[in-house]
């Protein structure tokens, strides 16, 4: 759907992106990640030509982006900004209607589409459509930001750190909603973030930038199992996958058990909630789809200390 071929962007003598090549497949959730100034946002904005490229080619649907009429191409590439940037003088419905209007949809179709999208992200159309953006919370505003990008049903959506301005709880709930949404709508999404947890949670594939260069492209599992070099290791190890539920503390190697000598804990139980069981019992049985597995205090503490980078 989107292909980069040896793309370079220079500002004067400074190189922002160097020789980037990758291919984003249709329906894929592709995450661009890296420290600040690594070139990830520049890469994103070269796709919809907000930033012109210096060398190389970017293809959108097998045609170089430079061959498209730039405004009309942008109607087919949704865009979500970090600053949310809803138009403050327009109502929610008017904000969402902008691209369909430019595409000359019928008024009735626009109304129907707006209501449908608002319902999809949990905003009651009758309550919210005539409100101004300032009357909504930050999380609600960015939900509108996302459906503004989706309004005319574009095949591709670009998201530039869309959740970074939100508080952690709101951010997490929007991430969950986005995963759900993506399952329904199957868009090609290019998503910029600097948060590896977010990248791991959302991405089908991750593309890690460092100082304008691509260090590694791969699935979250590949990043964990085969990090290419020390930079990658450090970048992901720094924020290694956190074990949250009891189920994540047991593995295939854990000892199975069939009797009822041990207190039984569901695998979705949060580890914090299991602590009070461990206070009373040395070992518990965890109910998993492969049968009940044993988990003792030592294993738990070993994992928890490893996560903090100490030796076990």
């Amino acid at each position, binding site marked *: 759907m989107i292909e980069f071929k040896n793309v370079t962007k220079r500002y004067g003598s400074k190189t922002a992106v160097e020789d980037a090549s990758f291919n984003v497949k249709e329906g894929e959730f592709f995450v661009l990640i890296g420290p600040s100034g690594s070139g990830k946002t520049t890469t994103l904005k070269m796709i*919809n030509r*907000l930033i012109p490229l210096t060398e190389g080619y970017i293809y959108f649907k097998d045609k170089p982006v430079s061959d498209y009429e*730039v*405004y*009309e*191409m*942008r*109607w087919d590439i*949704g*865009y979500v*900004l970090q*600053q949310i*940037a*809803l*138009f*403050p*003088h*327009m109502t929610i419905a008017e904000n969402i209607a*902008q*691209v369909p209007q*430019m595409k000359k949809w019928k008024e009735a179709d626009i109304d129907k589409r707006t209501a449908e999208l608002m319902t999809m992200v949990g905003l009651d159309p009758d309550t919210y459509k005539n409100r101004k953006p300032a009357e909504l919370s930050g999380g609600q505003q960015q939900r509108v930001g996302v459906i*503004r*990008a989706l309004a005319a049903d574009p095949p591709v959506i*670009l998201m530039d750190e869309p959740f970074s301005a939100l508080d952690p709880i709101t951010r997490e709930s929007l991430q969950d909603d986005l995963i759900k949404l993506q399952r329904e709508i199957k868009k090609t999404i290019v998503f910029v973030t600097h948060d590896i947890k977010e990248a791991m949670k959302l991405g089908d594939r991750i593309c890690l930038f460092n100082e304008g260069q691509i260090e590694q492209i791969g699935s979250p599992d590949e990043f964990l199992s085969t990090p290419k070099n020390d930079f990658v290791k450090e970048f992901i190890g720094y924020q290694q996958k956190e074990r949250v539920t009891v189920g994540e503390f047991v593995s295939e190697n854990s000892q199975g058990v069939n009797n009822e000598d041990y207190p039984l804990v569901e695998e979705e139980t949060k580890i914090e909630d299991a602590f009070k069981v461990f206070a009373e019992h040395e070992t518990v049985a965890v109910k998993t789809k492969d049968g009940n597995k044993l988990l003792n205090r030592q294993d738990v503490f070993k994992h928890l200390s490893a996560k903090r980078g100490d030796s076990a």
Partner: protein
Amino acid sequence: MNTFLETLNSRKGELLSTLIEHIQISFIALLIAAVIGIPLGVILTKTKRTAEVVINVAAVLQTIPSLALLGLMIPLFGIGVVPAIIALVIYALLPILRNTYTGIAEVDASLVEAARGIGMKPMRRLMKVEMPIAMPVIMAGVRTAMVLIIGTATLAALIGAGGLGDLILLGIDRNNTHLILIGAIPAALLAILFDVILRVIQNLSYKKAVTLVGTIFIVILLVALAPLLTNRGDSLTIAGKLGAEPSIITNMYKILIEEETDYNVNVEDGLGKTSFLFNALESDDIDGYLEFTGTVLGELVNIPPESNEAEAVYNQANTALDEQYDMTMLEPMAFNNTYTLAVKRDFAEEHGLETIGDLRQIEDIVKPGFTMEFNDRTEDGYPAIQEAYNLNFNDVVTMEPQLRYQAIESGDINLMDAYATDAELREYDMVILEDTEAVFPPYQGAPMFKQEFLDEHPEIVEPLNKLSGMITDEEMQDMNYRVSVEDESPYDVAEEYLEENNLLE
């Protein structure tokens, strides 16, 4: 307070018509300034360097004193509403231009990026995003411009554009505070009214705002055109300087011409200075005006009088006018509105003053207050007096004509220049010092036209010449007193004189 209400009552017709004129001038000027300033401000946001140059030029234009700007308009655009509106537009441009530029330039960059990112073309981005967000700043500029326009438009009366300035200038000329207030208070109220309308417009959608402004524009245009449509026959415009005397005389011209011909006559009295009127006559903005023989020699053709005989001066002025400008003065009236030097009667008695020469003995205690014009006229003003009488006063104060009477009453000055027919000479009990050296040439009033115009309209000559040799100094003084002190209408005073002297059939 009572006299204020009386004045208001006697002037309410005038108040209404000048108010309407004021609204027309102000609204049209504001509309044009907005139509030029807003798009220009938008275009300038695209080129930062040009923007600075253009905004600085607008700022320089803003520093030109308003009276000077109005004066500059006459040779270019004549007199009346058109040059007034052009001058007002020039004034109003800066705030509108600067606020539009700032408003658009300061729209949040992320909103501009969002608009570009979702594929808005530049025009849609401007109309849907940048303009609405910048609108409060732009409208603040429009409102500033509006206050400037309504204030400055009061000066437009000086170049014959009418408006509330007519009342204010008349009030200043007559030293009538009530009249000044009757002009000034509605001007202030008008500014508040416009402000309310602009706030309403600001909160309307584009479509409604355009409809509203369009409707107001059409109504104003119709009101402006209505008198033109109902006019029967051709119309002439005869003008006069600011003051009671030119108003009375030009109204006599109007009555006489309308009585005996089919022409309608517009009286444009109260126009600024000699140069305003002369330029207006040259550029055919007016057809004729009341001029004085001495002024023609001293200011227009610039030759010294060969004699101080009234008739000789008239002949000399008329010949020179014909040679230099192809203009003609018809036969003059009797009164001689010449310059004189005047003092309070008790001051004259105390120092035994009868002639200008007598001033030499008391040179040290004389405190003169002259009009700027008199102080400056070499042929027949203060310089000529100095030379002829070998006089030299220490500190000459120059001031507005009407202020001299107050100054002499309060003792700030004790000698002033005056016109021989000034009503105030009687009002303030003053005496005229005799001009034994005949420095002041005769100033006899007569209507002045382009010769070409008289050839095309020969029928107006006879009615106007009926005034030849009529109206004595005393009669003129009396009529001036009735208009400027007793506040009678110049038209009524003019008509009464004509009737009493059997000049009307």
